[in-house]
């Protein structure tokens, strides 16, 4: 019911959707992380941005267009975020 039972005949793939804040959006978490990294003694750190990554197990047959639909409608908010997909 909750962990969907996947049909074991279908081959599954892992898809990674990476969602990062748009450059124009304030990213205080990224700024705080940059500061903390400097505190840990790593010099020369430039901009740090923090986003989300969503790892999906999907049937091999899932069309790319469907993955884009989900990434755009649900996993990211185009007003503030950009996403990219990797398999």
């Amino acid at each position, binding site marked *: 019911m909750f962990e969907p039972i996947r049909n074991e005949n279908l081959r599954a793939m892992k898809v990674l959707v990476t969602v990062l*804040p748009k450059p*124009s*959006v*304030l990213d*205080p*978490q990224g700024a*705080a992380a940059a500061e903390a990294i400097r505190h840990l003694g790593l010099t020369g750190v430039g901009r740090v941005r923090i986003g*989300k990554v969503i790892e999906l197990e999907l049937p091999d047959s899932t069309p790319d267009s469907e993955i884009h639909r989900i990434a755009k409608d*649900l*996993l990211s*908010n185009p*007003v*503030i975020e950009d996403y990219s997909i990797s398999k």
Partner: protein
Amino acid sequence: MKFAVIRFPGSNCDQDCVLAINNLPGASADFVWHKDTSLAGFDGVVVPGGFSYGDYLRCGAIARFSPIMQTVKSFAASGGTVLGICNGFQILCESGLLPGALVRNKGLHFVCKHQSIRVESTNSRFTRAATKGQVLNIPIAHGEGCYFADDATLAALNANDQILVRYCDAQGQINDASNPNGSRENIAGICNETRNVFGLMPHPERACDAALGSTDGLVIFQSLLKN
């Protein structure tokens, strides 16, 4: 006037809204479950605060797909009154009923406190009982209340007088020091172009009883009840 207070899984200011509204003469409120699809018999909708779907993924991102939200959209499209408070504001933005988005507070922490906001426009059914420039003391309680919209959207919001309330200090000054979360232009709440949908981060329902330190939230509900 009868209000529907939408209950999503994870809503937690739903009861507070019902209590506050039922205490107002001439108003009443009832819960509407997120799996329902009808708003028949209601004159207005409140999308309350809380953590719908745990705020997982993004605040409001999952709630927007709830069955009731389709009905709320058509209710709004036909001119119905929709008020989104805190998480409700986030849901309205995610649903596209209001422009922009709410992101992580600049200070990174959840902030719960009394906050002054200034009424920027009384040209709405939500603020018509207030006076322009009036400073209201209304609590905020959010971790992701930093309002963001791109420059073009902001310009349009200003041009159309859609910014109804801004964060300010007790004297009504609007500046960085009086901005609790980093919102662009200190925006605390906006309405849509047709002025029947209003979302704000502060909680007017928490400012309707003197025992809680402020009754300034009443003016928003009184605006709605005023003919």
